[in-house]
């Protein structure tokens, strides 16, 4: 069953087009991602799906309903973790969940029980009665995610769930989101991070400048838009450009970044041998597997995180 259906979806702000005619279908039980750089239109899309931002054009149906007409009914079945936490810092961790549950018409007793379960789920039980203000960024993020689950939603919208968190906090969030997915909850998330998308998403779209530039599973996208391996070369010179000509033909494709050159090749070791045969002596050599970052670079000519 298609839970989210968009065709030619457009969002314009005073003449500026943030989302420029995108087509999206998200099926039940899927983990679907929007990957893209700053300003790609990810949040604008999420807010339209979350029924707080009316589309400027195109078709949008959520849970087979019309966001403009059935906003509250749809929102009752969504969980939203916005890009910026909007928790009540003065309330306790538990009160943030119980008061929010009441907005969904959940009885007080059920709300208290569910708050305890969710605090356990996001590992905040020990902080249940402390105020939110002094919590770390990772804890606040987990609380926001718990709050998004308080109504047992069918779809959870997560706008950059781990941006700004340290690696340990990120892994904890990923692990919890993975569990949700296993429980059959449909996840829709946005991210700057290709490793996040690769970890969590069954399917994703790459967005740039309000448009979708590619779509597929992380694996399929890498197969389609990149090579199996990548050789990263760093030369001790002001500009890497001068080496671009000398490397011509080593791989299928070559990208020159300000601080390094990327060679797209089927076999990394062969390529490194060829570089040595040409008597080029890079300061550092790194062979790695292709990632979504490379897909993005290929599609847009830009890196994802600047």
């Amino acid at each position, binding site marked *: 069953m298609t839970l989210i259906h968009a065709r030619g979806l457009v969002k314009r702000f005073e003449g500026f087009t943030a989302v420029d005619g995108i087509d999206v279908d998200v099926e039940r039980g899927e983990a679907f991602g929007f990957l893209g750089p700053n300003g790609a239109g990810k949040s604008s899309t999420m807010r339209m799906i979350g029924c707080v931002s009316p589309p400027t054009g195109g078709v949008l149906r959520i849970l087979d309903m019309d966001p403009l007409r059935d906003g509250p009914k749809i929102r009752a079945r969504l969980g939203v973790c916005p890009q910026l936490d909007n928790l009540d810092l003065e309330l306790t961790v538990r009160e943030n969940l119980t008061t929010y549950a009441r*907005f969904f018409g959940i009885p007080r007793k059920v709300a208290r029980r569910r708050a305890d379960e969710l605090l356990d789920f996001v590992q905040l039980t020990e902080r249940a009665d402390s105020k939110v203000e002094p919590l770390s960024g990772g804890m606040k993020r987990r609380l926001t995610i718990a709050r998004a689950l308080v109504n047992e939603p069918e779809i959870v919208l997560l706008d950059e769930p781990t941006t700004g968190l340290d690696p340990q906090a990120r892994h904890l969030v990923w692990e919890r989101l993975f569990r949700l997915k296993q429980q059959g909850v449909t996840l829709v998330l946005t991210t700057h991070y290709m490793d996040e998308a690769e970890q969590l998403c069954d399917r994703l779209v790459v967005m740039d400048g309000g448009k979708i530039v590619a779509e597929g599973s992380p694996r399929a996208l890498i197969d389609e838009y990149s090579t199996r391996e990548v050789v990263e070369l760093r030369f001790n010179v002001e500009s890497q450009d001068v080496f671009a000509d000398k490397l011509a033909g080593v791989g299928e494709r070559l990208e020159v970044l300000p601080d390094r050159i990327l060679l797209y090749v089927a076999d990394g070791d062969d390529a490194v041998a060829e570089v040595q045969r040409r008597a080029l002596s890079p300061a550092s050599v790194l062979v790695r597997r292709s990632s979504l970052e490379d897909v993005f670079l290929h599609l847009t000519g830009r890196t994802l995180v600047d």
Partner: protein
Amino acid sequence: MTWSVLEYHLVSYRRIWRSSVLSSFVLPLLTMLGFGVGVGAYVTGGVQGVPYLDWMVPGLIASTAMQVAIGDSSWPVFGGFEWQKIYFGQAAAPLRVADILDGHLLFVVFRTLTSCAAFLLIATAFGTMHSAWALATLPIAALVGLSVATPTFAYAAAVRSDSYLAILFRLGVIPMSLFSGVFFPVESLPAVFRWIAYALPLWHGVDLSRAATLGAAPSWSAAGHVVYLALWAGVGWLLALRRFRKRLVV
């Protein structure tokens, strides 16, 4: 759904209610002592046939309603959009914009009522109430509160810097408390100022309150006062709803 929003604000208030209740008793107590004993001693003839304190207290109750209502609708509303952004969290839940607005307004009415009830209690203890109609000061206070809270909600949702809220207090709240017949009859004001007092909501609440506690007829039609205050509340509500929509549905 509106009730769940009120409930949220009450839970939030629970942390500070002790100090808040204390301060709502302190102001009336100081007033009774300062004005009743101090200023009252100079106004020996009383005003309109009653002791000065008895004449002034109902006005102060209405004025307290106005100040509490505006205080609780200015920074908290601004902060709901600009600081903690709690309104945006509420908008993602199955609430309508009107629920978010009404729930918060109900809380402001609750705060107005409890503050004025404390005042009424103390004023009664000091023997300044002349009639059982004095109880009517409470619904009047709620109406005064709404008449100023709704436009303040609209204003606080419209401005993008909290320095505009300070302007509201300097140019709106303070002059209104001084020139709305709380401390002296508006008849002693020059005509221009008198008409400004008539146009603003507070004087209508003051005149009604005074009529209630003194058990006398108001200087203007009581129904007229009520309709005029309701008009402020109603127009303010429409403006506030429009402003809230503009911020929450983009």
